[in-house]
């Protein structure tokens, strides 16, 4: 019997090939039919700082959450062991570089001073010395198997055998760590080779050399093969996507018929635009589809305004950004609201305020998105719980934007953006492109015709059609007007479109309930907490608490009726909200929009993902005590 679920950490210096390792291992696992989700934690702009990949693997499905402790820690350097040794469960395994055994925690310059003294204190409390060898002793005492290899010997051999330039060594260190992980998990070398081939693609030499590394690792660690063997995969994957959240959204934008994307580079949004740049011109069965114009503008003000311009010209357009960039876009969003311009803003939240934690996640921009921009006008905010949801929701965002002629904010976050997962292929049969285009009526064209809430939208340049756009209040033609009666009608039209959205968008796309109703509690959240929330609901059922998870997908207009209906059915008892923020602001939004009081709140704002172990514990605490607010903070 092996493991049906297993969690591991790969750690090393930022910029040392860790991302490559994650990609190789994920693809090798997917190739053999395992489900994988892997979160990437890294420092901003500081090369050499400790970064790590936290991965969950399952033989049954795509895992939905990350958890501690882990079964396996694969370290590229001493700092990784010092930082994570407490995360390895007893019976687990540590793989490390033998050459750094003498390294002391006090000798590692890249560790932040406060963390270094905390680790030194912990080691002292355990009666251990400050060097790596002592930590190995502590781990062995806890029943952890420690497996060392000399990286120096392998790298030296590679340099001599292939004449490799030392500048490219990290590509082979990633070979060492992926090979050792694969060996321990009982993956075969063919699967591993497939991983190398997919990641190094055209660079055949790199594949060959990494296979050589794998052979060396296999020779030396033969006796440990399958020490943490995974169960034979039972997933029903025939084909899966192995992709990040950024990738999935980009793919969905192509499917949705995107023709213009603007961006100013910002973490963690830029990768989406980089992906789209690769497919500016796509060929399907010999026919060129597209093209998509992707423009890197001088700033986010230009990004939103050029996307609005493309929208006025009649194409599907969007921009992607994060908090600091979004703040610059809000005047443009207000202009889009005034001019009823459909545009999609894909907003990947990260830790704020200001530059904050550029490479860490958060959900602290909920209220800022729902209430962004001056003046009153219709605007829609959508969120997505996981990679697959993000695919369908991206298409939905364009459909809503065009049908109702308004800006749509698709509110995602770094956790989704930067995590890689095995994703079942989206069902394209479910995808509908609804542009909401109405024929332009004969006669004099009125862009802002008041006969209906949604006026016929003609693209700029339509022959024989004239229209005017201005930031000022305007009449039906678009001419500036300050006349009070027109003001009232035009103002109301722009807002009342929200009622249509509220009435016409199916409830299932606004709010989704998971689990059997009629239980003991209702956990409510939105966005990327979905996976861990679902797992926590399952986990806590084993402790005797039955409950549901309510995933609020449409954040604005808030699905008031739908939420009240769910809460009414569950008797309004024991409602707990969870969010990556200080305030757990979804509770306040629900209070404002639906008049419900949610006192119990679970908050995390370290920028690190909420893990299953801590959420289950926090949930249990809110259910079994008078404690209303639990702040969780696990993870380095």
């Amino acid at each position, binding site marked *: 019997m092996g493991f049906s679920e297993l969690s591991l950490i790969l750690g*090393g*210096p*930022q*910029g*040392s*090939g*860790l*991302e*490559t390792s994650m990609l190789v291992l994920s693809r090798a696992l997917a190739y053999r039919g395992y489900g994988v989700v892997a979160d990437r934690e*890294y420092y*901003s*702009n500081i*090369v*050499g700082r400790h970064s790590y990949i936290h991965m969950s693997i399952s033989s049954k499905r795509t895992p939905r959450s990350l958890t501690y402790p882990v079964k396996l820690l694969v370290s*590229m*350097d001493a700092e990784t062991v010092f930082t994570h040794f407490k995360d390895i469960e007893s019976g687990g395994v540590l793989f490390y570089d033998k*050459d750094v055994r003498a390294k002391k925690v006090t*000798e590692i*310059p*890249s560790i932040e001073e406060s963390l270094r003294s905390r680790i030194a204190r912990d080691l002292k409390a355990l009666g251990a010395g400050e060097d790596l060898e002592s930590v190995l002793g502590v781990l062995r005492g806890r029943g952890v198997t420690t497996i060392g290899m000399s*990286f*120096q*010997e392998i*790298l*030296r051999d590679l*340099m*001599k055998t292939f*004449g*490799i*330039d*030392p*500048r*490219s*060594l*990290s*590509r082979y*260190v990633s070979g060492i760590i992926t090979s050792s992980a694969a060996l321990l998990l009982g993956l075969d070398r063919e699967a591993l080779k497939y991983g190398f081939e997919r990641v190094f693609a055209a660079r055949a030499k790199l594949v060959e050399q990494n296979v050589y590394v794998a052979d060396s690792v296999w020779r030396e660690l033969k006796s440990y093969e399958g020490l943490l063997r995974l169960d034979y995969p039972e997933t029903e994957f025939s084909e899966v996507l192995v992709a990040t959240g950024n990738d999935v959204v980009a793919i969905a934008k192509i499917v949705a018929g995107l023709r213009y994307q603007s961006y100013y*580079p*910002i*973490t963690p949004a*830029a990768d989406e635009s980089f992906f789209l740049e690769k497919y500016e011109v796509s060929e399907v069965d010999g026919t060129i589809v597209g093209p998509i114009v992707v423009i890197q503008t001088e700033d986010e003000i230009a990004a939103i305004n050029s996307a609005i311009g493309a929208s006025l010209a009649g194409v599907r357009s969007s921009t992607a950004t994060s908090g600091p960039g979004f703040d610059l876009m809000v005047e443009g969003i207000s202009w889009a609201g005034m001019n009823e311009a459909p545009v999609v803003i894909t907003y990947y939240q990260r830790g704020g305020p200001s*530059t904050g934690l*550029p*490479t860490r996640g958060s959900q602290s921009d909920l209220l800022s998105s729902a209430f962004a921009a001056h003046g009153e006008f219709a605007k829609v905010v959508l969120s997505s719980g996981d990679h697959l949801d993000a695919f369908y929701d991206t298409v939905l965002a364009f459909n809503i934007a065009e049908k109702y002629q308004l800006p749509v904010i698709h509110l995602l976050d770094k956790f989704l953006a930067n995590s890689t997962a095995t994703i079942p292929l989206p069902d394209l049969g479910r995808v509908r492109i609804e542009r909401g285009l109405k024929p332009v009526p004969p006669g004099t064209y009125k862009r802002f015709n008041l006969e209906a809430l949604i006026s016929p939208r003609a693209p700029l340049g339509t022959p024989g059609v004239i229209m005017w756009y201005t930031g000022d209040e305007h009449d039906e033609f678009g001419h500036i007007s300050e006349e009070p009666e027109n003001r009232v009608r035009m103002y109301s039209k722009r807002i009342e479109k929200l009622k249509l959205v509220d009435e016409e968008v199916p409830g299932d796309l606004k709010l989704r309930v998971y689990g059997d109703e009629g239980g003991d509690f209702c956990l409510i959240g939105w966005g990327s907490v979905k996976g861990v929330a679902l797992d926590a609901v399952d986990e806590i059922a084993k402790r005797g608490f039955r409950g549901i998870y309510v995933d609020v997908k449409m954040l604005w207009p808030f699905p008031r009726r739908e939420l009240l209906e769910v809460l009414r059915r569950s008797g309004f008892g024991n409602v707990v909200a969870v969010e990556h923020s200080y305030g757990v602001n979804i509770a306040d939004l629900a209070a404002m929009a639906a008049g419900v009081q949610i006192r119990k709140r679970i908050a995390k704002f370290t920028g690190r993902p909420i893990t299953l172990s801590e959420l289950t514990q926090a949930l249990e605490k809110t259910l079994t005590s008078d404690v209303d607010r639990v702040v969780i903070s696990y993870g380095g």
Partner: protein
Amino acid sequence: MVEERCGNCVNYSPHVYYPQVGRCLVFSTGVSESDSCDKFKRASIDELLNALGGEGSVYCTTCGATLVDEEELKAHSRNHRLAIRAVIDEAIAEEARAD
């Protein structure tokens, strides 16, 4: 007497993350710190000061830091391993993030 191996040679340029391996500045090849050859030249303070004058900086392997003046060099040289320069890994550029 300093052991005559690459790790102690002034012409050894350590890899920025894995200083046990690096480049020989004489032969321009990959070597490990435990290798040796007959061109060994100890990384003495004079050699390093010389390099500082020529290159404008030297590298402290222990601290992972670039040193740019004599005072600094002398302070680090007491207990730290110094080199003329480090080998910067090419993956750094690929993984460094914009913000």
